[in-house]
Structures are given as C-alpha cells and as structure tokens.
C-alpha cells in the first residue's frame, strides 16, 4: 500500500503463489506454523515451502515424522488450544492414513462439543494424476472430504486462486482443505503481491457463454477452456465456471448460469462414479429442473485406479476431447 508507483502486473507460477500465500499468513498470524513431511530445509517435495525454513526457522516450519495420524492429530490439538496450524499432507492419497483424525476428530469436534471448540486449521494437500506416479500418488479424493460436515474443501485451478484461497483458509476459523494440483505447479497467472482472499464457497465464471454451462473442478477448468473453441465450431457457446470450492458448493452461481444456458455439464478429474459431480447434478435437477433442456452430463475418470503407464494414464485422464464428446452425446450433435 505504501508505494503508488505504476507496476506491470506480476505473473507467478502456481507453486510460487502457494509459497507466497503461506509466507504472508505466517507473517500475519503469529500462532500459525507449518507442519508436515519434508517441509523444513527440504522445502517440500513440490518445492512450495522453499525459503520458508530459512526465514521462519525450525519452530515455525516443522518437519514431522512420516506420521499422518500424528500430523492431523497435532493440528487438531493445537488448533483447539490457540494455534492456527497449516498442515501439509504431502499426497492426498495418504489421507487413508489419517482419515480418523480428519473425519472423526477434526470435522466433528466443534459439533460434538456443542460449539465450544474452534479449530482454525488449514491442510494443504496435493492431488491429481498426469506425471506417472501411479495408483497411490495420483488420486483426486475431494469427494471423501466434501461428504464430511465440519470441514471445508477448496480446489484452486490457478495461481491467483491458490494464493487467495490459502489466505482465506488460514483466516477461516474452521478446518479447510486446500486441494492442490501437481500438474498445475508451473501454470502462470497474475498474482498481486499484497495479501488478498478468494472467498471460500464462491464459484467464478471464467468464460461467459449462452448455450451450455460447464462446471469444472480444479485443473479441469483448463480442459474446459480448451474445449470452448471446438464446441464453438459445433455451434455450442459454452459458459465455463470454475467451481473453486466444493464444500461449501456455490449452488447459486451454478443455477443462475443454468437459467441462461439450459444445459449443464460437470467435469472433474476424480473417478466419475460417486464423484462430486453426482452431487452437483442432483442439486441442479432438484433446483433447476424447469430450466433444463437436456440431461446434466458428467465427465470424470473411469472406474479404475490411476494407471502407471503413460499410455494408459493418457486414456484415463479426462480432457477437452472427452468434454466435447460428452457434449455431443448429450445434445445429440
């Protein structure tokens, strides 16, 4: 705020936006710390804590053992007693190791205690396939979390949202999971240097259109945008919405868009069966049935673990072509 000089908008990759968001939170909140595997001198396996150990020291950037139950438990106990922890769950796939601490402790403590406990804890975790890490390091398990009353779940698709959602999560007095995407780490976007929030629970219309609403989650936003041109050639003017937050889910923005387009498609990288798209589809048919001119379509990964072989992983991952194909099928064009 101090200098008023003209500056060119600055671009940052997703990975650096994460670092900057966490760094600014640590400066702002004296009771915040980062705890997780390899977060210290190593700066995380994805590199997004680089430099923080040197700046904040070992008391605030805390290497833990490979103990996910311990990491989440630490965050539950510490957040309930006056700290604002930022926990790092290196790969989202490791959530199975600590699901009790998440589902039965973190998510429910406030409710079970009649509102007496407040848990301002943020969990950063890395999801997504695309770099041949196979079945246990590539999953998108956000639906597991969205099903738990008591936690919030956001999925930034770009660098601007990554920083803004991390800051919003850290300032929120609830457990918030920031589900990051490993294929997006190098993606550049304009990122203001100052602290800002992207509101949790608010979707963003990233491309306006009049014929079809595409609700995209996480990295699939970019695939949806890549589908816009081919769809235009088919005569379909697509509106692309970055869902950004799946818990709470911004039902209003989705419905508002459907009132205009009368057609909807949901795309996420997670397995389609039982994925969050099913929840969105159900809400849309319940609340916007009268506006619909076509069934709500869904694009997601097939019902299979994430394969290792590059040849198979390519087939596995939803992409722009799959979106176009699904639109054609749904609209009969």
């Amino acid at each position, binding site marked *: 705020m101090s200098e008023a000089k003209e500056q060119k908008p600055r671009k940052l990759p997703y990975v650096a936006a994460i670092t900057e968001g966490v760094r600014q939170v640590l400066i702002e909140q004296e009771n915040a710390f980062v705890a997780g595997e390899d977060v210290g001198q190593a700066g995380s396996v994805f590199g997004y804590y680089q430099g923080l150990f040197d700046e904040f020291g070992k008391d605030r950037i805390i290497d833990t053992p490979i103990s996910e139950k311990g990491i989440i438990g630490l965050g539950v106990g510490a957040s309930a007693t006056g700290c604002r922890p930022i926990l790092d769950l290196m790969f989202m796939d490791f959530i199975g190791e600590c699901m009790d601490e998440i589902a039965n402790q973190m998510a429910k403590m406030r409710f079970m205690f009649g509102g*007496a406990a407040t848990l301002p804890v943020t969990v950063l975790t890395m999801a997504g396939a695309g770099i041949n890490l196979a079945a246990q390091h590539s999953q998108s398990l956000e639906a597991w979390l969205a099903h738990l009353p008591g936690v919030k779940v956001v999925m930034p698709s770009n660098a601007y949202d990554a920083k803004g959602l991390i800051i919003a999560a850290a300032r929120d007095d609830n457990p918030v999971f920031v589900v990051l995407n490993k294929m997006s780490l190098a993606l550049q976007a304009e990122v203001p240097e100052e602290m800002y929030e992207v509101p949790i629970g608010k979707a963003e219309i990233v491309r306006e259109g009049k014929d079809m609403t595409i609700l995209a989650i996480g990295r699939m936003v970019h695939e949806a945008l890549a589908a816009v041109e081919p769809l235009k050639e088919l005569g379909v003017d697509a509106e692309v919405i970055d869902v950004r937050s799946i818990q709470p889910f911004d039902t209003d923005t989705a419905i508002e868009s459907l009132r205009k387009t009368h057609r909807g498609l949901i795309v996420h990288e997670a397995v389609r069966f039982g994925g969050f798209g099913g929840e969105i589809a159900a809400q849309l048919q319940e609340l916007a049935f009268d506006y619909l001119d076509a069934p709500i379509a869904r694009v997601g990964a097939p019902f299979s673990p994430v394969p290792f072989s590059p040849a198979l992983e390519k087939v596995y991952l939803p992409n722009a072509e799959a979106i176009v194909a699904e639109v054609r099928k749904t609209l009969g064009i």
Partner: protein
Amino acid sequence: MVRIRRFEEEAGKMMENGKIPGALHLYVGQEAIASGVMQHLSELDQITSTHRGHGHLIAKGGEFSRMFAELYGKATGYCRGKGGSMHISNMDLGMLGANGIVGGGPPIAMGAAFSNKFRKTKQVAVAFFGDGASNEGSFHEAANMAALFKLPCVFVCENNGYGEYTPQANHQAVVDVADRAAGYGMPGVVVDGMDVIAVYEAAEEAIKRARAGDGPTLLECKTYRFYDHVGVRGMGLTYRTDEELEEWKKRDAIKGFEERLLQIGTLTQKAIDAVYANTNAEIEEAIQFAEDSPFPHPDELLEDVYSVRSEV
C-alpha cells in the same frame, strides 16, 4: 474418587432403566487414576479422555448437573446435548473430550502439548487411554512425536486388562504397556492403579518432568473395571469370571484409601460418611436439574457444525 464412583453408579442405573439414552462406558473401579493424576493439573492444563470418560471430567472439575444434563441429551449439558457420554467435554476446564474412537485421544493431546510448547506456556497435556488403545497406530505416532519434539505431554495408560471384551493376553504380547516407552525414547513407569497415592506420586513426577520441558512419560496404571464394557451388567458376555471380578474388588481403591485414612487417623468414619452424604445430595440435585432441563430445540441441529468465520 467417591464423587466419580457415586456419579457412575447412578448413571449406570439410569442407563439400565432407560432414563439415559445410548451407551455409557462407566469408570467404576478405575477412579484412583483420574483422581491421582488430576491433582497435579490446573484448569489450564489439558487432557484427552476415552469412551470411559466421565471420571476424567469429574476429576478435572466437571459439574454433575451439566454432566447429567449431557447424558440425558439436554440443552443445558456441557455439549448442549450434541455429544453425550462418549463426547463429553469442557474446553474451559481443559477437557478436550471423551472419545468414541479407541486411540482417538493421544494425537490430540500431543497436539495440545505441541501448542503449549509453541505458545511458550507452562501447560501440560495428559492423554488417558487404555491397554486396547495402546495397539492403535494413532498412539504410536503420537508417542513418537511427543518424544521427538520433547513435548509437555504425559501418556497415562489405564490398563484394565481388557480391550472391550478381549483379555490383554489375547491382544498384545507385552504384559506391561510401559515397556513400549523405550521404543519412543521416553520413561515408562508401571504403577498400581488401585492405589491412589501410588498414582498420585508417579503422576507428580511425570507431570513435573513434562512441565520442566524434559518431555513425555508413559505411565501405566494397572487397574480393573468393576462394571461391564458398556453399562453395569452389560450384555452378559462370558469373557471374564466372577471370581476374577471379586478378587479385584478386594483391592477397591476407594475402600483401601478409606481404610488407610481411618488407620492413620486423618479421617473419621463420620467425615467419610459426610463425603458420601454430600455427594449423594449433589447427585440428586444434578439429576433433578437434568430432568427439568429442556431438550435442544430442533433448530439447534445445524448449529455448531461450522464456526462463523472471524477476522484474525
């Protein structure tokens, strides 16, 4: 100890005659542990408890009235009727919850201890858990991290010889859970959990050590529950013998302590009787309070799922 015993006896009766809904896991027989340990803790210190958690809250200063109200599911309960027996808690007393998950408490206590160290307070966090929970991975991770970070934490294992309905010999190869302390690089101490003075003395050392910044201790208290896993007589499963129960009852911590105090002349029988009479009167009043209290309004169901966001 008497306050816990009498509370649990009455609560047990009320569960079995249908006045209290759900399941109660009662602490009768194990009173010396909560009582002996809690003498060294202030309201600022934190504890995590187990599914058998009423005794810990009482020893930490919990009021009977709000506890009974919670067991009844009333709006005046400690958790506004949302937690019940298995989640009874009070943050103001540093009681971070009974826990329906075996092994749920130790990681949370470790986290509270981490917070105490991080915030540079002199608070100590104590995790109560059973022999059954000592087999959970969550205990292992919490113990390792507490020792690694030298946290002001004490792990109090209440070994009552049974993981639910399974005898200890059928669920772990060690006889003393405290032996496991060596694997974490912390002291392990075994103490007679039916002797409140022994528990008091051992806990004093462990808590002093934690408060001084010298790290955690695993304190194992050998004990026995006089009631079933759930309720008083429970489901009548044949997993232990009446003879065994009677043998342990001869070592009743309350009876033993009363006899000792009478012997050395610290207390008269009259004074002991007064403790019971006062406790009984308090219980009667508390039950009346619970019965007179309203149930939560249906609108309260969706409250407390999330905290309304506040600016930092």
